[in-house]
């Protein structure tokens, strides 16, 4: 296990370094002069020569390699620089924003898990009957509806029409429900199919036949025998979906006025706020790597076959 973790950590560090290089290059090679944008942002009529002053101030005149080394060195020390747009330290903004995104992803993951299990079980319990067809239909709709549209529907239905939940803000559980549901729809649809197919496969396995011969009922077999056996597959798929849910935050956070990392990243991109964009990309990449690591560990812990490979 320690050997596995150590190997994975080494891989992750190399991956992170390469990713930092790629994201830095992509960000700085984007067209447009950020100094002009900042000058515009700071005043309706900029002082003559002010753009050069801004460029000097934010170090745009330095060679790219120097800028990369400076940035990476500071980032390793936890200093992500100053946001050109707001004048605030990025490292001071990030923890608050990571908490907001964390709440979004965690809540959505729980809802997606519950919904997918419910839909998957509906299908598996009555295979090829009406509940299965309904479950499949819902999964198809959920997987093919764009998230921004789901969000707009949620707001229109639950906030504007019925006024049940707030349409914006991060003010406690009642304001979390709609964003959670919005993000959860797509992964729930995808995961429900994994549950359904996994259970179907499990139900044809020899151990299910053994369970049947012992006189166990269908419900008991599904819950006690089949479900534990699809856990590793489900965890793997959930891990991928959690990564995607973080990316979905870029759409959902601004929609619900949540000041998370997604919203921060989007505003950063819009204003070529290099420091913010680079920090967010690095955070996203780190998150993906950590989630993958956790998923692999969870699978390792729950699947004896894989555990045997590493022991």
């Amino acid at each position, binding site marked *: 296990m320690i050997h596995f973790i150590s190997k994975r950590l080494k891989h992750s560090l190399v991956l992170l370094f390469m990713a930092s290089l790629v994201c830095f290059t992509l960000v700085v090679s984007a067209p447009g002069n950020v100094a002009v944008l900042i000058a515009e942002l700071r005043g309706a009529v*900029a002082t003559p020569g002010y753009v050069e002053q801004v460029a000097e101030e934010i170090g745009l005149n330095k060679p790219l390699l120097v800028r990369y080394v400076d940035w990476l060195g500071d980032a390793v020390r936890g200093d992500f620089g100053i946001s050109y747009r707001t004048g605030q330290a990025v490292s001071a903004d990030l923890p608050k924003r990571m908490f907001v995104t964390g709440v979004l992803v965690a809540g959505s993951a729980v809802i997606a898990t519950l919904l997918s299990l419910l839909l998957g079980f509906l299908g598996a319990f009555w295979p090829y009957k009406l509940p299965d067809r309904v479950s499949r239909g819902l999964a198809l709709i959920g997987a093919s509806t764009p998230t921004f549209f789901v969000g707009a529907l949620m707001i229109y239905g639950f906030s*504007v029409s019925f006024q049940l939940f707030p349409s914006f803000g991060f003010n406690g559980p009642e304001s979390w429900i709609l964003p959670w549901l919005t993000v959860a729809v797509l992964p729930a649809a995808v995961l429900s199919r994994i549950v359904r197919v996994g259970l179907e496969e499990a139900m044809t396995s020899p151990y299910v036949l053994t369970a049947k011969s012992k006189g166990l009922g269908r419900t008991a077999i599904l819950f006690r025998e089949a479900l534990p056996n699809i856990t590793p597959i489900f965890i793997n798929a959930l891990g991928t979906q959690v990564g995607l849910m973080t990316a979905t935050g870029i759409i959902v956070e601004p929609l619900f006025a949540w000041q998370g990392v997604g919203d921060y990243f989007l505003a950063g991109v819009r204003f070529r706020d290099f420091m913010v964009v680079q920090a967010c990309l690095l955070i996203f990449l780190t998150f993906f790597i950590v989630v993958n690591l956790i998923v692999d560990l969870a699978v390792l812990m729950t699947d004896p076959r894989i555990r045997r490979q590493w022991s």
Partner: protein
Amino acid sequence: MSLNRRAFLQASSAAVGLAVAQAALTKIAYAEGAKGTLRVAIAKPAGNLDPQSHFAIWAIQDLMFEPLVKYGKGGKIEPCLATDWKLEDGGKTLKLTLRQGVTFQDGTVFDATSCKWNLDRWMGKDQFSWMNCSKYFQSAEVVDDNHITLRFKEAPLALMQELSYTRPTRFLSPKSVGADGKFVDPVGTGPWRQVSADDTQSVFERYDGYWGDKPSYERLEAKVIPDPRSRVAALRSGEIDLIGGFWVAGLTPVEAKQLDAAGVPVVIDPGNVTLVMAFNPDRAEALKDPLVRKAISTGIDRAAIAKALYLGYARPAGNLFSDALPLAGKQYDAPVRDAAAASALLDKAGWTGGPVRSKEGKPLTLEMVVSPEAIPGARVVAEVIQAELKEIGIDLVIRSVDHASKHTDMLEKKYDLGFFLTYGAPFEPFGTIVGLFLSTFKNDVEGKLVTDPVNLDPLINAAASASEDKVEGELQKFYDWLRDNDAIAPLIYVPTIWAHSKRVQGFSTAPTEYDMPYENIVLAD
């Protein structure tokens, strides 16, 4: 380390169950509008509110910080912290009488000393040399508690207008800065005092020691909602009371129509910003010919753009500035589209044939650069123009770029046709004229609408140095030159759109896009 799969599932189920129970026990109820509180949407966090800084939302600064004089509707300069003013010495000396009985929100008295302290923070500093009053500043002398005299090396153009700007001219308490002189807290003399501010909202309470008419309600919350659709939904659901404004939380004509259809009160102000099309003869040889520029201008249906894109909320423009602004010059009706006349002009200019006209074997193809991020709706306007110009034999290629690239392209003149917005009140007319037309003024943010050092610069300089009784005539010569040469093509006067909940009564728009329109509101709770 190993974990039994059943134990794993049981532990996970227990955690989920607990979370669901927690959520179920939490009272889920829709929050009714807070009594006595006006809830305004803002598109981004208010930011650092230092009046001498450049990060914050102007309209939020306007809630707390007041100027010496206010910019009223139509450009009338009205008293605020100064009750009287007198220009002497050919405009080089300004004698101000300050309002008595004014205190900052921390109890500090506003007098000539605190006034001078504020002026010394920015006047005469390089950073603010784009303002004439700062560029030509010589000294500020305290006469007595309520009188102060400002002296300038040269008479500053539009001095009183400049003193009405939101920043850097407004006044903060001398106690609101740290020992190093750096801004710490937003404390002004205005009717609103900041209670709290973060990335999600800024909360203000009425300052009861305010010298003027106090707002009829006690609290104002500016809530950050970046997405325009979410702002509209929040207004419809009753969670906020006010959205709109050019710089506060913009509302598109389509959204305004939807709100109107849903029974939400929508307020349209004709606005004081003009959408102007620029020609770049330096890049497109064809545009050097005034006949071609006139043909393009004549070939555009401004009324259709105003109707189709702005859904009737905008007015077609025939001038650089609308009559809502002072010194806007003689007002002409917007040109009416005449495809036959436009074609005739192109024939006369030697561009013939079809479907794309050509001259000496070169087709009449022009590139228009648009950025919907910088100017909402620009892409659609460009497409309308593209279709209209096609009818008269001009092949218009649209290049859509993002905000950052637009800046670079406009600065480096990498366009044949492009869009500009004028600056709007209180910067007009000289803000736009100097910023976008004077070749000797380095504008490295917006680029230039049109420059002509030989013909245009002398007209601008003459207007800028004219005495008060002659400025109108001198400006008219500038406007006439633009018109006679078809140097630009003003398209529409961009409207300001606001929408409010039914609990908001007596709403009226502010004189400029930089002010918060809170003044006349009464809340029906």
